[in-house]
């Protein structure tokens, strides 16, 4: 397995100082320095350990159900005039790609001798994935979730509790994902010795963006093998993924970043439209700044106060973007598009009818941009279907056309 592959020669992976171009770093207060330093010193060594890799691989196979299928979507392909493959992360245990990262991080936490796990969650998907692996390993689990999100996502709150986690409402600031992340970081400051923080996306202080991307890189590792079987080549023409913080995208792109012929397409949440004041398109609306100890592109006021974003999809409702993605945007390696709430809804209905797959609202954003790619019949497109849509049924039903 390639999670510990040497990327030091790459322009697009993290450099030895923890940066992607001018993005990244670890802007942590001194109280957090030892925690982050311990991770930074140890994560690559642990990831390289064959014993660790064997355990990770075994759980991915027998517990998560990997490899996830690379499905040739025939009717979708016919509609858009290209060969479109869906990477079925929605078929993983717990219904999304999030579990790849939580399995990796809990195994890491065990090796670091930690006994207590904390996490942040927005819609509750990462919280459920964290509570799941904590139950699996018999570890204490505390999940921070914005008060507003707790009300909006009652079924996932119930799931986490059933899995034995304590769900702590984040009541500060705007009471959503950004504030839940602040609270998790504060918990970590107050519990520096026994606690590991399982951050759910490819953002936050170095080494999190690289570490999370590596645990998610099983997605692109499998794509290469599976595409070779289907098409006789490892490299697609297009890779498409949605981006909030960007963990499924980081995993989808990981092994293709230095293959220039693979076009990288990232789809952000346009919300009600880029200029509506209700959007989460961080590259279009953001500029460089620091959020959650990471220098990246983020949505903020002229005074440097972080802005509350909007998206119909809770998983994309983040005012920043992972530093790898900010770098892909700035270098032009990635093409960044945005899909509005309405476009995503339409794409969600369309996939349901064409392929019998109800996608997560996040993944629906990626699907929504197939129509805007200049596709030719021989083009091979791989789109990461990051999660299943069960959690979004209420949203779909509310907006269903009469």
């Amino acid at each position, binding site marked *: 397995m390639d999670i510990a592959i040497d990327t030091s020669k790459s322009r697009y992976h993290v450099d030895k100082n923890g940066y992607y171009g001018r993005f990244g770093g670890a802007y942590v207060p001194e*109280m957090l320095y030892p925690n982050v330093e311990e991770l930074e010193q140890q994560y690559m060594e642990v990831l390289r350990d064959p014993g660790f890799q064997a355990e990770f691989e075994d759980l991915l196979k027998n517990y998560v159900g990997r490899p996830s299928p690379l499905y040739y979507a025939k009717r979708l392909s016919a509609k858009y005039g290209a060969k479109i493959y869906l990477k079925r992360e929605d078929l993983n245990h717990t219904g999304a790609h999030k579990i790849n990262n939580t399995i990796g991080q809990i195994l890491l936490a065990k090796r670091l001798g930690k006994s207590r796990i904390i996490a942040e969650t927005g819609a509750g998907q990462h919280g459920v994935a964290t509570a799941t692996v904590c139950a699996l390993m018999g570890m204490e689990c505390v999940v921070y979730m914005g008060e507003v999100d707790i009300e909006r996502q009652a079924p996932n709150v119930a799931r986490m509790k059933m899995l034995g986690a304590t769900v702590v409402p984040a009541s500060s600031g705007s009471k959503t994902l950004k504030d839940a992340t602040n609270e998790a970081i504060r918990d970590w400051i*107050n519990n520096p010795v026994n606690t590991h923080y399982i951050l759910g996306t490819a953002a936050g202080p170095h080494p999190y963006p690289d570490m999370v991307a590596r645990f998610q890189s099983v997605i692109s590792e499998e794509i290469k093998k599976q595409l070779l079987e289907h098409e006789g080549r490892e490299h697609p023409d297009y890779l498409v993924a949605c981006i909030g913080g960007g963990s499924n995208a980081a995993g989808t792109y990981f092994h293709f970043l230095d293959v220039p012929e693979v076009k990288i397409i990232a789809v952000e949440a346009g919300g009600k439209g880029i200029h509506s004041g209700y959007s989460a398109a961080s590259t279009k609306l953001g500029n460089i700044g620091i959020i959650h100890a990471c220098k990246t592109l983020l949505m*903020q006021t002229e005074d440097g106060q972080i802005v509350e974003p909007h998206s119909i999809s809770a998983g994309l409702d983040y005012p920043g973007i992972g530093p790898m993605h900010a770098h892909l945007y700035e270098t032009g390696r990635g093409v960044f598009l945005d899909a509005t709430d309405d476009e995503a809804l339409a794409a969600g209905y369309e996939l349901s009818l064409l392929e019998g797959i109800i996608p997560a609202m996040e993944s629906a954003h990626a699907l929504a941009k197939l129509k805007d790619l200049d596709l030719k019949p021989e083009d091979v497109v791989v789109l990461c279907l990051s999660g299943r849509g069960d959690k979004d049924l209420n949203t779909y039903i509310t907006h269903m056309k009469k």
Partner: protein
Amino acid sequence: MQNRIDQLFASKKKDILNIYCTAGFPELNSTLTVMKALQDSGADIIELGMPFSDPLADGPVIQDSSTRALKNGMSLHKLFEQLEGFRKEIHVPVILMGYLNPVLQYGVEAFLKKCAETGIDGLILPDLPMAEYEQDYKAIFEQYNLDLIFLVTPETSDARIRKIDSLSRGFIYAVSSSSTTGKDKDMGNQEAYFARLKSLQLNNPVLIGFGIKDKATFDAAAAHANGAIIGTAFIKALEGSTDIVATVKSFVASIREGKTLAEKTI
């Protein structure tokens, strides 16, 4: 060149009282009233918080004061407007404390220039890493004769403390325990940490902060260092205040004169 912080520590070695308040709290225009009252009541250093939407190192009390200040309309530009000419009245050292992002948006050089022009003596920017400071900003801080005050914690290694000492100017902010601000962690078991700090014989004076809330905790901290820093307890006192000046005076008196009373009873 000596600035006000250096002058203070040159003339006073013990019981230095540094009090934190959030700019624009409790009212948008109370900033200078609070500062003036702090000086008149006998605070040695004023640490003025620049409010931020996402203050990671702070507990709920200081965060709420930030949120309220932002709602009141506070911003860096507004703050510099309020501070225009404040040196006519306020002579104690004034430090701005805040997070890096608003400073980046203002422009680091423009910000430091403005600080120097206004009469600010130093900065505390807890999320500015040492390496980035050394590489990108140290020269500008020195150009404007502004001190950057770094934090150390019980978890900070000796080697790192020495490195921090070599980069710090003004004083070192010793966080009493691994926590966010305003946590009630026991300071009793910090003796070894304070003794370790003392044994390192640092170049900079040391003030202890976090968890200092009354005369007893101030005395305990001040016994191990050049003085101590109070934030959360002061913000709490200001929260429900109807007479800011009276509240500030009685708060500082509770720290200072409480102590004098105690000494008299010995």
